[in-house]
């Protein structure tokens, strides 16, 4: 356990740190992935029925969007503090907070995606004898997928960053290391954990983009004609077969660091990734 130079010298980049804390870093990363992953999966499962509900009963649309947006404006620190009495000191506090944040983005994008399905496509499907269930799962959902996946990508990247704040209850994944490193001025730990956090966000985003492409081969086929579609770029939404983007969808930025997400304006308009006023909670 001889202290190596770059550790005692408190260097920003320190190979010895990586070597001696490898286990710690792996544990923190796994916890981070587990918390983020659980939260996003749960959020998707919850957002879907909410979006369908909001679409089925149009008078609910505004209220659903407003309420999820209001939830989104609760500061992360306060959110975890409010959930603490419910769950006690556990990962559930962080997961639940992240689920609530993700709902804003997901419900909005699912609605936008479903709304973007051209009416004549629906008519055609009905004409072919599709019932409501088949219409939803065989026609509307595949067509809404690009917008939906855009939401999932933003929600995921955002969750990766907000998970760090969970360090206040000891369940912040890499955030645990960032916070304790900041308190004791441990530069290598702060930098390494932060970089891992960014890497996680980028990897998750790229993976989801891959999933999206695999699920929507027709988009690529179409775009093949007019130049390749770049990751994160909003499709113009030509009213054709794939209404990705469209009006009111949230589209992801270029992958993003820990805080790539802009706060929504308090109306039904889209959240623009990378716009001014990005959420800046984690440093509190």
């Amino acid at each position: 356990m001889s202290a190596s130079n770059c550790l005692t010298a408190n260097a920003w980049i320190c190979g010895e740190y990586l070597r001696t804390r490898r286990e710690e870093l792996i544990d923190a990363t796994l916890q981070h992935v587990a918390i983020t992953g659980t939260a996003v999966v749960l959020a998707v499962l919850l957002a879907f029925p909410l979006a369908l509900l909001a679409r089925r009963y149009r008078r609910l649309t505004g209220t659903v969007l407003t309420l999820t947006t209001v939830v989104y404006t609760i500061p992360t620190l306060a959110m975890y503090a409010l959930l603490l009495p419910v769950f006690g000191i556990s990962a559930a506090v962080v997961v639940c907070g992240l689920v609530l944040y993700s709902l804003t983005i997901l419900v909005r994008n699912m609605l936008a995606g479903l709304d973007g399905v051209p009416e004549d496509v629906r008519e055609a499907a009905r004409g072919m004898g599709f019932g409501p269930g088949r219409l939803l799962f065989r026609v509307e959902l595949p067509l809404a997928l690009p917008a939906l996946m855009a939401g999932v990508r933003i929600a995921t990247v955002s969750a990766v960053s907000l998970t760090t704040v969970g360090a206040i209850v000891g369940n912040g994944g890499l955030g645990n290391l960032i916070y304790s490193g900041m308190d004791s001025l441990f530069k290598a730990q702060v930098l390494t954990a932060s970089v891992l956090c960014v890497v996680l966000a980028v990897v998750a985003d790229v993976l989801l983009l891959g999933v999206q492409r695999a699920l929507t081969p027709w988009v690529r086929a179409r775009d093949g004609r007019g130049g390749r579609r770049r990751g994160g770029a909003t499709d113009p939404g030509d009213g054709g077969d794939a209404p990705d983007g469209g009006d009111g969808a949230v589209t992801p930025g270029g992958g993003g660091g820990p805080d790539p997400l802009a706060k929504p304006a308090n109306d039904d308009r889209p959240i623009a990734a990378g716009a001014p006023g990005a959420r800046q909670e984690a440093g509190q």
Partner: protein
Amino acid sequence: MDTQTVKSARTTLRRAPLATAATALTLALALTACGGESLEESGSGSDTDTGSDSTDTDGGDSLVIGSADFTEATITAELYAQILADAGFDTEVQTVRGRELYAPALESGEINIVPEYLATTAEYFNRDENGPDAEPVASSDPEATREALIELVEPRGLTVLDYGDAVNQNAFAVSEQFAEEHGLETLTDLGESGLAVRLAAGEDCVERPFCQPGLERVYDIDITEVDPKGVGTAQTKQSIQNRTNELALVTTTDGTLADFGLVLLEDDQNLQQADNILPVLNTETAENQEVVDILNELTSTLTTDDLVELNRQVDAERVRAVDAAREYLVDKGLIDG
């Protein structure tokens, strides 16, 4: 289609309150659902040793040691966890942001044992019990402070064990150069020098009787400004180094004072409270003779100098708290290597 839209828009206006209520209900249900599911999922997914489910079932073998997230707290928590683990208990350290988070968990039994600071924790429970303006119960007398603490926490189901020699008190530091220039060794010297100083300390310093008011009352020190950089944080210590401030509130067990070129001024008129380190237990889930004996042995072994050294290892040499604690316990013969 168009008429339908108009109609539904009208309906929206008319039924807005109803719709709001319905959506609120849906969201509330969603929240509940998210809670239930996420509890299960996170239990299996993120970390299997969250412990909250294992603590209530058998009070004997599984113990959660609570800790705040600063260096010394994590070290003492590791000391407790490892010495108890050596005796066959299944221990786990739960680190959270601060006392306001772990104290309620200690009362509920979610956390079983916390290494505490006598006077600070007594004041925490005093304020919690009697309001923010409560008359202080802590003093520089550890025995009296412990009595006061016991009185406060016993009804809450907590047990206070004995305190030892290890003390982490608040202390005031100046730069070596400043001390030399003005011939300062004690806080009395500083008061008599008549120097006006800026003080880097916690936000609450202006009202804490043992910080600014005490320095002015007991030592007659002229404080022009309190700079809220935190107690003993790197920022506080740096602010002395770069001459933003002259006086810094730090702790007696800080292992990095010399690295920042700081020296402590002696608290020669006993302004500071008795912040001896001692274990506080959740009576129902953790109080048994074996635990008490083990922790008492550790408490009587641990000294302030030991803490300084452990803090230095972790903060300066970047030894992991868990390794520093293990080495210390082995070194003192408290556990088998």
